């Protein structure tokens, strides 16, 4: 086995790992606090990537297709500013979703929650296709990603963009940990995650706290979409497959464990690049199959994943 090639593949995989970790984190934050899997997370994230795109490109008639999106005032932003704007929009959308669609249901059945998130997925997906068209668009790179822009370590190339994505992800994570550990909102969120009813009894306002949780999660989702839009091309179905990887990552790590999401994202990202490289049948396009199989196996054998809490079923 060519060791330099292996190292190169691992370096290449790290970029995707960061994206999966960050989307998995979004899923975990919501599952941990609300107990629901947000199937619409990927589509909501893609939508924010389009917002960043509109912020950057301005309301060109060809871009907006003359639809309602033409009403959004476009300011020529620099790329990072546009992404910050998109993340803020994503957070607002996440909070609004919790307030308008999830809270009024008040802990309804799994079926109702699945219906809501699948409804959101379908509606957002076709809304994007209608407004911006299904054709892929080139999203500008946030980090220098030209031909020669990489570190060389042991003969393998580590691209600046990979390093940049990890720096962004880790700094946002540190920010999140500080927020959870050292602020009142963070404390309230931890209390609600452990037990909503007990938190309510000691005076925590559960609803608004969950809303912050959804905002945080959607922020991570938006970040994942904006950072990956350059490498996978921006199109309405961009995050559909990424969602499977992210779910696989979250399941592997344990659906209620943020640490698990990070580790799961790393493992799934690595296996997505390494398995197709060494198993010819899988190929690049089918690399989502091992992720799905891994997810099924984990749910069958160890539903709590690596770091998740074991659930005890009471009769």
């Amino acid at each position, binding site marked *: 086995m060519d060791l330099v090639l292996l190292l190169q593949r691992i370096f290449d995989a790290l970029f995707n790992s960061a994206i999966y970790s960050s989307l998995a984190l979004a899923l975990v934050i919501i599952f941990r606090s609300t107990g629901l899997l947000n*199937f619409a997370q990927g589509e909501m994230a893609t939508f924010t990537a389009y917002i960043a795109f509109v912020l950057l490109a301005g309301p060109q008639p060809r871009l907006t297709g003359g639809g309602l999106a033409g009403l959004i005032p476009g300011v020529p932003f620099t790329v990072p500013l546009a992404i910050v704007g998109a993340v803020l929009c994503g957070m607002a959308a996440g909070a609004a979703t919790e307030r308008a669609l999830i809270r009024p*249901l008040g802990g*309804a059945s799994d079926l109702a929650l699945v219906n809501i998130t699948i*409804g*959101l*997925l379908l509606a957002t997906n076709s809304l994007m296709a209608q407004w911006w068209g299904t054709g892929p668009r080139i999203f500008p790179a946030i980090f220098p990603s030209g031909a020669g822009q990489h570190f060389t370590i042991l003969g393998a190339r580590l691209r600046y963009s990979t390093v940049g994505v990890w720096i962004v992800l880790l700094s946002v994570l540190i920010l999140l940990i500080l927020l959870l550990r050292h602020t009142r909102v963070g404390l309230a969120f931890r209390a609600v995650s452990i037990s909503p009813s007990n938190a309510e009894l000691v005076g925590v306002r559960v609803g608004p706290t969950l809303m912050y949780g959804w905002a945080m999660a959607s922020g991570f989702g938006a970040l994942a979409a904006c950072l990956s839009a350059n490498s996978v091309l921006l199109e309405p179905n961009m995050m559909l497959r990424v969602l499977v990887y992210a779910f696989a990552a979250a399941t592997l790590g344990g659906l209620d464990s943020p640490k698990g999401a990070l580790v799961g994202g790393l493992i799934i990202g690595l296996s997505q690049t390494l398995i197709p490289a060494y198993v010819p049948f899988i190929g690049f396009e089918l690399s*989502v199959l091992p992720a799905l199989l891994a997810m099924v196996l984990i749910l069958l054998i160890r*539903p709590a994943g690596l770091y998740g809490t074991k659930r005890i079923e009471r009769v």
Partner: protein
Amino acid sequence: MFERQHRVSRLSVAGIVLLSVALAIIPFVATTTGLRQASQIIISVLAVLGVNVATGYGGMISLGHGVFVGVGAFATGYYLDDLSLPWLVAIALGALTAALSGALVGLPALRIKGIHLALVTLGMAIVFQPLSKRFPKITGGVSGQGVEARFDAPNWWPGDSRMASAVYRYLFCVLIVVLALWVTWNIVNSRFGRSMRALRDNDTAAAIYGIDLVSARVTTFAVSAGLAGLCGALQVLLVPFVSQDKFPAQESLVIYASAVVGGLGTIWGPVLGVLARTGVGKAGDLIAGFDGLGPIGDFFSLLDESAFVFGVGLIALTFFFPRGLAGIGRKRQPSE
């Protein structure tokens, strides 16, 4: 809760009469193309019925029934062309193949429940397209392939024009769908159907009452996938062409949405769901056809996208009519 479903209400009698009249008139007024489209709409009831059996009666959320439609279509094409089997055998085997693949999915569903099963089936729906591109001999790869065999009217059928054949195919599809509805109705009201619903409501209690969870879950999923596969097989009969691009993940989700919108756990739900999907699409076509509406027209052209309307419909119905269109007239609240 086991509601008695044997009594037929006056409303459903009126509905059945209206529907039968409409079905009888269509062949006289439609063109060959229109008749084929009508047949395609009618057979799509089968896929939605499949979701209804798994999710509505069996309590297992399936977001991936488009996969079974696909398996049914590809398998039927294979049996017809590569094994040169006669049509009826190929259709039956196509549905059976889908049922077997459904049983395979039913096996993990023994342990994976609720929202996690929804996750796995959604993943399945997303993986199906790239996976089927990997078997070009059966699926025609990226661009799909034609099926040589044609389903033509037999000799005793009056007339041998293209129209006569189209009417024959139309009636064949209507017959199969009616039969499937009747068989499903009997299954859900049989002893097995009751154990299915007991599983949905409380599987532990069902097991204590002596219901074999393994066989009940696997059979439910197999029946439900078989219905979807039958839909796929009939698609080949109407349009002899199979291709992976008919089965994107969104199709699976719209099938699921149709089942919920129509009404889960009711026999007429799938019919209503498909009618709603068709009606919404036609309304969108009409409105988007007007010129000069500006951004409003653009907005209404969204109605053309059944995915958008069904997404919004799914959310709205969950809030206001949790039992779907079929449940609007009823007083009883859902027993979830």
